[in-house]
């Protein structure tokens, strides 16, 4: 059996079932005769139980590839959904102050539980126009340079930084290359290590390689249960390994790109559980989970002195890596 290629494809049966339930509900609504309606409603209830069970089964024991599909799902909450749900008085700031503007990374100051914070995140789009406007969540150099500007302000005005990570990769085009996408990412990482204010990153969807780490090198990194974080997209890995990009599902296993693996290797701090059926099936529940987690980690970090916040971050990344010690 070949692997599904999109979240929609993978959920096809479930979506059909949901569609059927919706139609049945419509029919019940229109049914004038009480008995028939009751019968229909009872049937719907059964169907819904069936659907819940279906979701239970489908979403228990997800493989890495299924997580890739869920992490990329169009219905998944995006950064601006979190911004709206978790913060108040958000004012989006724009521009790299160097001649360019980017729409794949957004950010600005806001209040979190009444406390000033700086928000930064990748932003994807849901329909074709939005997706093009957001460049599919792939930031150009100016996106990272805007982030640097926001990080600088966060430091100057003693605001913790909350970043939301959700990108397939940084933009790899000729324009990006000519304006130094590599330097922009590296400089953003470097800036994050200069900060003495606490930084918390949440991987909400795709943590796509350099494009992700450019705004994710934080004191604490949290991953939603079904998000992924990888050095290379599985399709790209499969293309290099086996010259078969369609073997992405196999590569996704080899790459150990799930939240569980990241935690196991000591690369993230916490896995945030998603509602049954994924974050998009109950955004409100997801927002509450994320909010609580940010509160907890931010609260702990804010007890530390600025200098310790900085060395905590250094030490955290300093310890990452696995190697052997050869016999002298």
């Amino acid at each position, binding site marked *: 059996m070949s692997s599904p290629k999109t979240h929609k494809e993978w959920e096809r049966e479930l979506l059909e079932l949901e569609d059927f339930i919706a139609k049945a509900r419509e029919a019940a609504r229109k049914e004038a005769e009480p008995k028939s309606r009751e019968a229909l409603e009872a049937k719907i209830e059964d169907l819904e139980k069936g659907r819940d069970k279906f979701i239970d089964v489908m979403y228990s024991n997800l493989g890495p590839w299924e997580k890739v599909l869920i992490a990329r799902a169009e219905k998944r909450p995006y950064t601006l959904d979190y911004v709206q749900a978790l913060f108040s008085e958000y004012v989006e700031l724009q521009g790299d102050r160097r001649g360019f503007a980017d729409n794949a990374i957004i950010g600005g100051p806001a209040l979190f539980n009444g406390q000033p914070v700086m928000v930064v995140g990748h932003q994807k789009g849901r329909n074709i126009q939005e997706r093009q406007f957001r460049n599919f969540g792939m930031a150009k150099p100016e996106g990272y340079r805007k982030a640097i500007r926001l990080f600088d302000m966060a430091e100057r005005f003693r605001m913790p930084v909350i970043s939301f990570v959700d990108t397939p990769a*940084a*933009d*790899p*085009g*000729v*324009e*990006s*290359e*000519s*304006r*130094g*996408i*590599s*330097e922009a*990412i*590296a*400089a953003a*990482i*470097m800036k994050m*290590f*200069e900060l003495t204010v606490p930084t918390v990153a949440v991987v909400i969807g795709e943590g796509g*390689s*350099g494009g*992700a*780490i*450019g705004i994710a*090198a934080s004191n604490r990194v949290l991953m939603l249960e079904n998000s992924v*974080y*990888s*050095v*290379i997209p599985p399709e790209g*890995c499969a293309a*290099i*390994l086996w010259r078969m990009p369609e073997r992405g599902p196999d590569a996704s296993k*080899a*790459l*150990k*790109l799930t939240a569980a*693996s*990241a935690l196991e*290797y000591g*690369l993230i701090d916490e896995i945030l559980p998603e509602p049954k059926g994924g974050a998009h099936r109950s955004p409100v529940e997801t927002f509450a989970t994320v909010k609580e987690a940010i509160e907890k980690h931010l609260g702990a970090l804010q007890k530390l002195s600025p200098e310790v916040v900085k060395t905590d*971050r*250094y030490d955290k*990344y*300093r310890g*990452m*890596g*696995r*190697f*052997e*010690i*050869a016999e*002298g």
Partner: protein
Amino acid sequence: MNTKAPANSEAFLQCINCKKILFSIDFEQNLRVCNYCGHHHRLSAATRIAWTFDEDTFEELDTELRSGNPLEFPDYVDKLHAAEAKTKRFDSVVSGRAKLEEMPVSVAVADFNFMGGSMGSVAGEKITRTLERAADEQTPAIIFCASGGARMQEGLLSLMQMAKTTAAAQRCAEAGVPYIAVFTDPTMAGVLASYASIADVIVAEPRALVGFAGTRVSKQAGVSKVPDDFQTAEFCLKHGMIDRIVPRKEMRDTLASLVRTLGGHALSAYAANGGKK
């Protein structure tokens, strides 16, 4: 500068760029730069070190670090063993201390022969230690880059080396110690997008391949047409991303001037400490 004996016993070889036939002895004398087209052929880490730093001053460190297979990635162990056999090293980066015109420097040199110079946990650790030693000992850092990018086979651990090495570069900057990167052919992807690009000064060898994405990816992604010199050192210079293109035979002098000027303050602190931290 050190002896430039022919690398192999063949009397002739062919330039990989212009395909002309070269005398090995001339080629070595010319620092493996083609007499005809000026192509800078790749060097092993050992040769690079011998041709750059003061004779017999290189002290290799971190030699105990060896790549494992933390992800149990398919075929990785075989590839590591093959690379070890080929290079007689445990990974792609050679690190240590050396002197350049008698000035102490902290040094790392990447070897493209070891799995395309890719950066996994060991390379990341060695670069980090090189930059940390520079900061701690107040000796300027010089890193020769040569890499296809992050090492896929160590997954997210490799990605995190980008953060780790960049953090070390930040520490270096904060310590007031200059860090000079030399982009040699090729300097790509995860290495370019981390410690390589944030050096205080970046010089590159002529025509070195330098870029973020594989050339094919970039060409697909961009609607704009691809310039002829795309992803070369020359392209980077034109776009303000590097400081200079330095031919191999001027490299040592250029690096020495940079260390003497930018590193003057740090080296005074080093000297004031009796030559050690």
